[in-house]
């Protein structure tokens, strides 16, 4: 029996099983506990209480959660981001897929420029993106107002209540189109050349190859892109919050669930209820992400 326990795992070279690895992992563990676990545990605990004018803080169990599930403002926010997700994510991923397929076909000039040009907005902070688009949308010195004034047309203002969700969707699409395009493009580049050759021998044309070879091979990457977009939609905050100062009549303080949690904690002073809303929203996001993953996995296996 040796003093050092050795282990052979799946044909790989032997590795020591000892505490060295744990020492390297400890810094991550510490910040993980401090930055993720502790806040979630503390906020979950807090969400089980309620502050009252008389009697102070009292334990209400799941009371805050039950309230949230019937709170019209919370539900309005959730259904709004649900609608947003159902429209914006497919549009953006579709455009990104189209762009990635065009790049991969190698048939256009100035490829490098195109790739970087489409990706560039990713480097713009979402606050700056929202400010900039807000000015462009606005009627003070915005383009829509100038267009209407110059041509006598009557295009609706993007910041009016009917259009503002689309206006927000445009800002988000603008920012993340290139990021998603590059994820898909990277996946396309990793498809082995032989697959194309085999398809070409079988007489498949360019469109047929895109549909039957490229898109199936893209499934994992499409899934990653969609997953991150779904999470982003549920957590929508920066863009509507910034645009709110330009369009207070169109964007309420509970326009998205995150804006509602913010409003509850900082303006309405309902801290424990805000904790419940934040936790509930996080849970909904994670569940939706997992359901999407499960559905994709099932679809792929078939």
């Amino acid at each position: 029996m040796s003093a050092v326990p050795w282990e052979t795992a799946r044909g790989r070279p032997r590795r020591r099983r000892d505490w060295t690895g744990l020492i390297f992992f400890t810094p991550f563990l510490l910040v993980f506990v401090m930055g993720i676990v502790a806040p979630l545990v503390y906020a979950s605990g807090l969400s089980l209480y309620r502050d009252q004018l008389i009697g102070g803080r009292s334990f209400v169990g799941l009371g805050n959660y039950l309230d949230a599930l019937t709170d019209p403002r919370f539900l309005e926010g959730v259904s709004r981001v649900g609608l947003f997700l159902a429209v914006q994510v497919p549009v953006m991923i579709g455009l990104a897929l189209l762009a990635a397929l065009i790049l991969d076909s190698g048939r256009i000039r100035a490829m490098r420029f195109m790739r970087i040009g489409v990706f560039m907005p990713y480097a713009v902070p979402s606050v700056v993106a929202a400010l900039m688009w807000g000015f462009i949308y606005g009627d003070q010195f915005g383009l829509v107002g100038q267009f209407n004034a110059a041509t006598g047309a009557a295009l609706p203002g993007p910041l009016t209540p009917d259009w503002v969700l689309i206006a927000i969707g445009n800002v988000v699409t603008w920012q993340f189109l290139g990021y998603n395009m590059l994820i898909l493009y990277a996946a396309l580049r990793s498809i082995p050349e032989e697959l194309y050759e085999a398809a070409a021998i079988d007489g498949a044309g360019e469109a047929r190859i895109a549909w039957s070879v490229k898109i199936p091979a893209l499934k994992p990457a499409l899934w990653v892109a969609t997953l991150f977009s779904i999470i982003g939609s549920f957590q929508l905050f920066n863009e509507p919050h910034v645009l709110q100062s330009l369009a207070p009549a169109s964007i309420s303080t509970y326009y998205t669930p995150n804006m509602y949690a913010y409003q509850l904690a900082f303006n309405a002073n309902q801290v424990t209820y805000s904790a419940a809303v934040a936790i509930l929203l996080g849970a909904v996001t994670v569940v939706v992400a997992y359901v999407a993953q499960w559905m994709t996995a099932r679809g792929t296996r078939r």
Partner: protein
Amino acid sequence: MGLMVLYTLLPLYWLTVNATKTNGDLFRSNGLWFGGEFALWDNIVATVTYQDGIYLTWLLNTALYSVVGAVGATLICTFGGYALARFDFPGKRMARAVVFGAITIPTTALAVPTFLLFAELGITDTRAAIIIPALVSPFGLYLMTVFATDAIPDSLLEAATIDGASAWTTFWSVAFRLLMPGFATVLLFNLVSTWNNYFLPLIMLSDPTLYPLTVGLHQLNNQVTTGANLEPVYNVVLTGSLLAIVPLIISFLFLQRYWQSGLAAGSVKQ
């Protein structure tokens, strides 16, 4: 494709052009072309001297938060990824499952809970309140684990161990060098996310001299558009926005091969 590039670059062009205009020209001239006077330099001076140089304070804060947060987070991820890829240790399977599961927890969902905890601990409105959360990056750990699995041959580590090098020496002299491309990639992504961070500093900070650029710019824009600020300094808001994105655009242009390989690793090797 040309249309898409037009769509993504036109707003940036608009911002650049309008940052060269005086306040008066902003309202008088066509938004897609330069105004009568080329006032970019005047606007930059106006921006950095506005309210005794508050913009520069915000810029330095952003730089501090991003550099300390991103370099720290990336080092921590490098250690952690190296541990997960190269060692067996008690509790490893569980640690891996929990941490990789946390990738789907969005940072915005953590903002309010983190604020509540930090308020209890009495450390809101400090620089640490922004930096500590920035040090955690489960996605960065995932990427570093992938890199460490692929980039370091076992034989090299074994050779170093046989030569009698300690684990610490082996890490710095062998592993870290091989992990440099991965380090640069994760650093870049962490840099972007801290540079762009908004929700957390918005709720954590109330002292304007601690604000990062994102919060400062939004606050200034709020004052201007609601008329709370007596001078309508639109030129400062626009020029400030333009200056805020220049450093990131430059680093993206210079570090192309890193972010491109990072995107590839993150998406393909699922």
